[in-house]
């Protein structure tokens, strides 16, 4: 793991160290300690920008305070000196400034491809692993609610499972309505939406939202009509229906996208490119809303990785703001996506005390229809968390985690 590797190199880097100016503007650092002797090269302009002295860096806010209004990108190192005992590199600059950097600090910021990848995939945002419905039992991890509330190690494992697989189940939660709030506040804070902070999913005649009916709820993502779509769904089962229905359905839509990408590239291309109008029009607590967000079903980032899936039959607008000739092909491709997702769905039924948590940016969820009776009415309390807040918490937990026992 990235953090532990850094920790290990801290102690070893002190014995030998050399540094020199290369190509006039860069600095090459050679920690001659055998095992990790690889040379590290740092652009001079980056080193100057990241000077750690009190003039250039504000310690208590951990923030750069360098005056960029006067910053000259042509700044060059004039001389460089290494202090083996202190494990530091000292640089004198053409703008008459002096800077010092510790070897440990430099290693953490090495421009080496491997080091950068492990920083991004271990620490920034864990890489996702996609799964087929048939693999659900293998990838779905269970955690004890009380343990997650009490132990940081358990909290970290839950959040890591959510980040990697997009789903995790907590068991043994009490049956009071405060569970989702306590859980969300263990991570950070609840993400509020048009529907408030906590929301109750139960059959309500005359409901203004389709989820608040006892009808089958086909696979969908929540709130695709937000640019800032809530990231993680927390659904606490307080009362489950005794009727045959009310089962949860889950699909990893990143896996469906993988299959389209390899087997039906034309459909994949259309679903990535053609923007769809997602909407929600109504009111909640007397407050009217008219939410619209235009985005494709499969959203890719600049590197072609999945950034987000949008899917909801009820929340897709009848407005479709694309050229006429795009419409029919889009329907063909979307129908294939829906078919593949439906065929891949994994069904299971949560029990009272279960808290189902899943990535709403990535997974589709749904439920089969059910019949309430007066003595038995399905009652789920839900809330959302945002990934910004979850990843932040996960990073803090990783920084504080005790290093694993040394195997050597």
């Amino acid at each position: 793991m990235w953090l532990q590797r850094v920790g290990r190199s801290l102690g070893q880097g002190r014995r030998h160290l050399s540094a020199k100016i290369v190509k006039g503007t860069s600095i090459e650092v050679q920690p001659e300690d055998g095992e990790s002797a690889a040379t590290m090269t740092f652009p001079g302009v980056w080193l100057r920008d990241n000077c750690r002295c009190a003039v250039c860096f504000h310690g208590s806010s951990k923030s750069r305070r360098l005056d960029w209004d006067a910053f000259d990108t042509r700044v060059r190192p004039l001389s460089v000196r290494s202090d083996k005992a202190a494990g530091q590199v000292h640089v004198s600059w053409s703008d008459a400034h002096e800077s010092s950097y510790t070897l440990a600090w430099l290693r953490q910021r090495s421009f080496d491809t491997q080091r950068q990848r492990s920083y991004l995939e271990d620490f920034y945002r864990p890489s996702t692993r996609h799964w087929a419905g048939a693999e659900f039992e293998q990838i779905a991890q269970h955690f004890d609610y009380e343990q997650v509330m009490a132990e940081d190690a358990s909290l970290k494992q839950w959040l890591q499972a959510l980040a990697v697989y997009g789903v995790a189940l907590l068991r043994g939660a009490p049956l009071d309505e405060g569970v989702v709030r306590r859980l969300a506040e263990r991570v950070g804070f609840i993400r509020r939406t048009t529907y408030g902070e906590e929301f109750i999913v139960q059959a309500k005649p005359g409901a203004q939202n389709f989820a608040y009916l006892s009808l089958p709820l086909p696979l969908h993502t929540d709130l695709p009509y937000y640019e800032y779509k809530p990231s993680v769904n927390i659904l606490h089962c307080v009362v489950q229906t005794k009727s045959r229905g009310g089962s949860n359905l889950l699909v990893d839509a990143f896996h469906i996208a993988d299959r389209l990408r390899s087997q039906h590239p034309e459909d994949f291309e259309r679903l990535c490119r053609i923007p769809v109008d997602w909407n929600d029009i109504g009111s909640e607590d007397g407050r009217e809303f008219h939410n619209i967000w235009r985005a494709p079903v499969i959203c890719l980032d600049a590197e072609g990785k999945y950034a987000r899936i949008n899917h909801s039959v009820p929340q897709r607008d009848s407005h479709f703001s694309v050229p006429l000739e795009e419409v029919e092909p889009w329907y063909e491709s979307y129908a294939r996506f829906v078919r593949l997702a439906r065929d891949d769905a994994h069904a299971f039924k949560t029990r009272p005390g279960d808290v189902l948590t899943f990535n709403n940016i990535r997974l589709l969820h749904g439920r089969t229809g059910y019949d309430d009776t007066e003595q038995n009415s399905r009652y789920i309390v839900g809330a959302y968390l945002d990934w910004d807040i979850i990843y932040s918490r996960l990073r803090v937990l990783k920084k504080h985690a005790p290093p694993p026992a040394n195997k050597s």
Partner: protein
Amino acid sequence: MFQADPQLSRALARLQPKAKLDLQQDQLRLVLVESPGQPDMQFPDIWLRDNCRCGECYLPQTLSRLPQLWNNLDTSVRVQQQSVDVEQQLLYIQWSDGHASQYPFAWLRERDFALAHRTRYLSDFYRPAPQHWSGLEFGHIRREFQYQELLASDEQLQQWLHQLAVYGVALVRQAPLEFDVLRRLCNRVGFMRRTTYGDEFSVRAQPGASNYAYLAAPLPLHTDMPYFEYKPGVTLLHTLEQSDSPGGVNLLTDAYHVADLMRERHPAQFRVLCQTPVDWADIGRDGDLEFHNIWRAPVINLDAEGRYVRINHSIPQRDSHFSVPLEQVRPWYEAMALFVRLANEQACSFKTTPGDVLTFNNLRLVHGRTGYDDTDHNVRHLVGAFLDWDIVYSRLRVLRNATR
């Protein structure tokens, strides 16, 4: 009376099949709707079937499509018979799956696929098109609103939000010097956006500040919280006490205009700022919550159509980690230095007075302030809060619908 006029109800209007187009293009199936005195409209048959308004297909109480059709959507569904009722202004369709649908002309017209109509819908109703401005033009585009009027008048509220959407900045005046002003203003729109710094936050000089903004030093141009994927959309800053010293002056630049300048005059540097991901970070704690926020994204973020969606810029909140290949580092620094220089050149400056609420688009504008000096009798104090654009645009659409 229902009447099937053979002239008006031309059953299907097929596009001329073109050579070399793929099969699905050849099979484009369009329904032509002609109504006297109005331009013709064309609709794909599958779209009409998908948007049938009958009780089996659509639930009026939720204003949403019922999903059953999609459990096994037949994309080969065809129009068997089409007719119009000119008096009632209705289109009737009998489908190959045995279903029958009817569509009011007015409903169809709102969903017309003609380019001019779609463009108007998107730039009028969906999200008003932004107009970029230079520092010199600030005097022309700036608008002021009265706090009490915003609370009392929907029309004023709509104008304020429209100004924010189009120009990205608006000044609200004459607010009381009370702590709940921003909450009342945000509740008028929808609700506040919470961040790791809470709901409202106080901006004033503090020794040992955990955030760089909480110092009296000059705060160079920046956007707030670039280290969030979900960056707060609109910043609201309520001046409770302004500095008597010459400093504490607000600085504002439309960074979309700066991006326009770079795109036009320095295309290579523009591309570098669009393509190089930067690590933005905030590491610290606020109250009990310890955080380590990171978001990787370029300075200038474009959507698929090349329009600006977001600007990220903050010297203090740019991480010392820079997760790009070595050879991209120097070109990025050169492009960024140019961006900073242009943003400074384009900055407008003014000094808010107590009771002012400065509101601006945090995805688009960069803001800052000059340094100032507090005294025992004069402590500059601002209260800040955020709104998200999802909530602002929703409110703007509701207000527009009410006045249409």
